[in-house]
C-alpha cells in the first residue's frame, strides 16, 4: 500500500487539500495505522507549537506599557502642531502678500483707508448685518454647529471637529443672515419708485434695477443695469453690467461692474472693479476712489485721494488729495487740479497739460518689464512661500490623510484630471458668481468661491505629492507622503520661478484641481463592492474525519 507523503498529510491536517484528495487520504487512514499515527503526531505538533507560542513566559516590558500613554498624549500634540503650523502658514501668507500691499498703500498716502480695509474691515459690506444678529440668532447658530459636530463626531477626528467649530463660528460672525427687516425685490425691473421711501436695507435683483426714490439704509443691487437716481442714505453695493449713479449716495459705493458712470454725488468713498469708470463733470465724491479699471475718466470732483490700477487714466476734473496710479497712460488736462502728490508708474511719462493745477510735481516711475525678478528679496519670499505651501500641505494631509491619498491617486490620471480641472476652474468660478448674483444664493456663492480658492491652492500640494512619489517611490503612509509632497512642492515652485513658469503653474493648478474633483466625485459614489463571494478552491474536509465513518483517529 502506498502511503501519502508527509506533505500531503500535513495539508490534510491543515485542511488545505482539495475534496477529492482529502477523501483519498481519509479512506487510506481508515485502513492504515501508520498514517493515522502520523496524522495524530502532526496534529499534536501543531497544538504544541500554538501552546508554546501563546504562553506568556515574560511580562510586558515597562517601556512598552508606558509607550501607549506617550502615544495617547502625542495624539493631542499632533493637532496642536497642526494648528500651530496652520497659524504659521497664515502668518507667512500675510507677511508675503497682504503686508507688502498695505505698506505700498501706506506709502502712497492711503493709510487707514487701504484696499483691504475698505473692502472688508472698514467697509459697510457687513454693516447692517452684524448689528442684526440677535442673541437668539447667535445661540441658534451655536446650537446648529454643536449638533453638526455631535452628528459627525464619529467620523471626524477631534482636531477636525475643533476646526469645524472654529470655521462655523467664523462663518456665523462673518456672514450672518440678513435680518427680517431687510426688504427684497426681484423681477425684471425691480424699482424703488420716485417719491417712495424705504426705511431699511433693500436687496434689488433683476434685469433693470432702478432706485428713483429714497432708501434710508443700504442698497444691494444685482442686475444687467443698475440706475441710482434717487437718494440713498446708506451704502450701495452693486453688481451690474452697466451702472449709473445720477442721484445722491450719502455712504460708500462698492461695485463690480462692466462700466460705471457717476454724474451724481457720493458722500464717502467709491471702490470699483470695472472696465470703464466715468466720473462726469457733475459727479462728486466726498472721499476717495479706489479702482481697478481699464479706463478711467475723472471729470468731476473728488474730495480726497485716488488709487488706480489699470490701463488709462484721464483727469480733467479736480482731486482734493493725492493720486497714486499704476497703468499704461496718465493724462492730466489743463482743467485738472490735484491737491496732493501725484505718483504714476507706467510705460510712458504722464502727459500733463499746461495750465493743470498741481500742488506737487508729478513723480513718475517708468515701469520696466522684467522677465523675472531674481533679486535677493524675491528669492527670500519664494522660499517663504514654498515653506508656507509645504506647511499648508502638511496640515491638509494630516487632517485628511485618506482623502489626500485618494486625491494623489486620482492625479495619476493626468488626462482626466487636466480635463476636469479646466471645467472646474472656470465652471465653479463662473457658477459661484452667478449664484451670488441671485441674491438668495449670496452666501452659497461666496462660500463656493472660497472653497474654490482653497482648492486652487491645494492643487499644487496634490501635484507636488504625486511628483514626489514619482521621484521617491510610491507610499501610502502619512509622513512619507508628506515628505514626498515637500519634495514635489519644492520642484514645482522652482520650476514656476523660471521665465514663463506661470503657465506651468496654471497647468499644475488645473491638474491638481481636476484630481481633487475626481476624488470628491468618487467619495460621493456608492461603494461598489463585489456582491459575489470570491471563488476559491473547494472546501476541504475537516481534518481528522473519515468519509462515511467516524473520526479517523
Amino acid at each position, binding site marked *: 500500500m502506498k*502511503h501519502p*507523503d*508527509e*506533505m500531503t*498529510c*500535513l*495539508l490534510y491536517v*491543515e485542511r*488545505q487539500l482539495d475534496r477529492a484528495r482529502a477523501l483519498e487520504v481519509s479512506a487510506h487512514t481508515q485502513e492504515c495505522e*501508520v*498514517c493515522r*499515527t*502520523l496524522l*495524530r*503526531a*502532526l496534529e*499534536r*505538533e*501543531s497544538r*504544541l*507549537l*500554538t*501552546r*508554546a*507560542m*501563546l*504562553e*506568556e*513566559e*515574560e511580562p*510586558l*516590558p515597562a*517601556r*512598552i*506599557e508606558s*509607550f*501607549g*500613554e506617550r*502615544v*495617547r*498624549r502625542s*495624539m*493631542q500634540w499632533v493637532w496642536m502642531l497642526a494648528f500651530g503650523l496652520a497659524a504659521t502658514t497664515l502668518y507667512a501668507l500675510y507677511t508675503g502678500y497682504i503686508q507688502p500691499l498695505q505698506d505700498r498703500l501706506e506709502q502712497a498716502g492711503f493709510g487707514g483707508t487701504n484696499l483691504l480695509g475698505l473692502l472688508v474691515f472698514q467697509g459697510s459690506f457687513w454693516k447692517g448685518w452684524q448689528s442684526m444678529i440677535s442673541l437668539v440668532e447667535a445661540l441658534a447658530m451655536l446650537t446648529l454647529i454643536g449638533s453638526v459636530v455631535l452628528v459627525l*463626531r*464619529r*467620523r*471626524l*477626528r*477631534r*482636531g*477636525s471637529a475643533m476646526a469645524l467649530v472654529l470655521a462655523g463660528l467664523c462663518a456665523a460672525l462673518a456672514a450672518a443672515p440678513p435680518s427680517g427687516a431687510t426688504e427684497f425685490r426681484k423681477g425684471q425691473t425691480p424699482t424703488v419708485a420716485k417719491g417712495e421711501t424705504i426705511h431699511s436695507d433693500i436687496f434689488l435683483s433683476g434685469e433693470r434695477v432702478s432706485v428713483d426714490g429714497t432708501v434710508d439704509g443700504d442698497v444691494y443691487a444685482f442686475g444687467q443695469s443698475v440706475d441710482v437716481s434717487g437718494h440713498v442714505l446708506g451704502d450701495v453695493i452693486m453688481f451690474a453690467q452697466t451702472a449709473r449713479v445720477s442721484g445722491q449716495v450719502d455712504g460708500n459705493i462698492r461695485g463690480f461692474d462692466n462700466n460705471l458712470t457717476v454724474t451724481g454725488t457720493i458722500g464717502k468713498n467709491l471702490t470699483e472693479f470695472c472696465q470703464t469708470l466715468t466720473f462726469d463733470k457733475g459727479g462728486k465724491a466726498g472721499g476717495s476712489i479706489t479702482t481697478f479699471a481699464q479706463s478711467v475718466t475723472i471729470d468731476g470732483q473728488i474730495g480726497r485721494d485716488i488709487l488706480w490700477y489699470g490701463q488709462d487714466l484721464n483727469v480733467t476734473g479736480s482731486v482734493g488729495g493725492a493720486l497714486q496710479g499704476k497703468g499704461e497712460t496718465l493724462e492730466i488736462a489743463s482743467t485738472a487740479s490735484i491737491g496732493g502728490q501725484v505718483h504714476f508708474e507706467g510705460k510712458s511719462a504722464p502727459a500733463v497739460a499746461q495750465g493743470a493745477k498741481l500742488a506737487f510735481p508729478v513723480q513718475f516711475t517708468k515701469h520696466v518689464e522684467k522677465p523675472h525678478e531674481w533679486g535677493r528679496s524675491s528669492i527670500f519670499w519664494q522660499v517663504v512661500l514654498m515653506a508656507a505651501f509645504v506647511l499648508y500641505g502638511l496640515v491638509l494631509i494630516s487632517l485628511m*490623510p*485618506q482623502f489626500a491619498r485618494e486625491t494623489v491617486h486620482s492625479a495619476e490620471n493626468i488626462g482626466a484630471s487636466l480635463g476636469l480641472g479646466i471645467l472646474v476652474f472656470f465652471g465653479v468660478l463662473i457658477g459661484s458668481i452667478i449664484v451670488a448674483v441671485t441674491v438668495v444664493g449670496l452666501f452659497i456663492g461666496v462660500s463656493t468661491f472660497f472653497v474654490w480658492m482653497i482648492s486652487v491652492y491645494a492643487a499644487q500640494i496634490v501635484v507636488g505629492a504625486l511628483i514626489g512619489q514619482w521621484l521617491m517611490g510610491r507610499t*501610502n*503612509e*502619512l*509622513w512619507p507622503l508628506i515628505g514626498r509632497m515637500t519634495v514635489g512642492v519644492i520642484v514645482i515652485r522652482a520650476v514656476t520661478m523660471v521665465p514663463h513658469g506661470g503657465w506651468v503653474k496654471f497647468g499644475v493648478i488645473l491638474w491638481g484641481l481636476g484630481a481633487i474633483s475626481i476624488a470628491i466625485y468618487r467619495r460621493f459614489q456608492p461603494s461598489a463592492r463585489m456582491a459575489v463571494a470570491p471563488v476559491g478552491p473547494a472546501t476541504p474536509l475537516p481534518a481528522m474525519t473519515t468519509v462515511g465513518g467516524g473520526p479517523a483517529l
Partner: protein
Amino acid sequence: MNAPGTTETEEIIARAKAGDAEAWGELYRQYAGAIFRFCRRALPTREDAEDATMEVFVKVREKLVQYDATRPFTAWLYKVAANHCWDLLRRRKIRQDKETEDLDNLPLEHPDPDQLEQLIEQRTGEEVRKALDKLGTRARMALVLRYYSDMSYDEIADALGVRRAFVGVVLLRARHELRQALEGTSALAAGGTS
C-alpha cells in the same frame, strides 16, 4: 486579549479611528501584549521585539482609518505586525534561509510516526521556544504566522511574498528544522518508514 468583533471592542476601535485618545489608549492596552509576543516569536532578540512592537503601533495608528471594520481586527493587526517584522528582517539582509521553491529537496517519505509522537510528548513550551530561536528567519516567521496568528495560507503567502502553493512547503520544512533543533539530529526529518 479580547475576542475580536465584540461590540465593546468594535466601539473602542471606532472611537480610536475617530481620533479619541482615550480609546486609543484602551486599544493599546488590549493588544500590546499580543503584538509584543508576536514580535518576540518572530524576531531574534527581546530588544528587537520591543522596538518593533512600538513601531507596529505607530503604524497601526496611522493606518487605522484604512481598517475595514467588517473584518476581524486581530487579523488586520497581525497583518500589519507581520509585514513590519518581515520588512525589518529583510532590510537587515539576514534572510539566510536555505529554502527555495524547489520541491525536490523535500523528503516525501514518512517520518517515523511513533518517534515523532514521542518527541512531541516530551517537549515543553519553553523547549519549543528555544528551538524556534535556532530556526531560519522564514521558517520561524512561517510558523509564527500560522500557529500564533492563525493566518490562512493565503495571508501567509501574502506576508512572506511567496506563492500560495509554496506555503505548505515552507511550513513543512520549518517543522523539520524545528524537529532537528529539538532533537539535535536530523534523524526524524530524514528517517522514515514506507
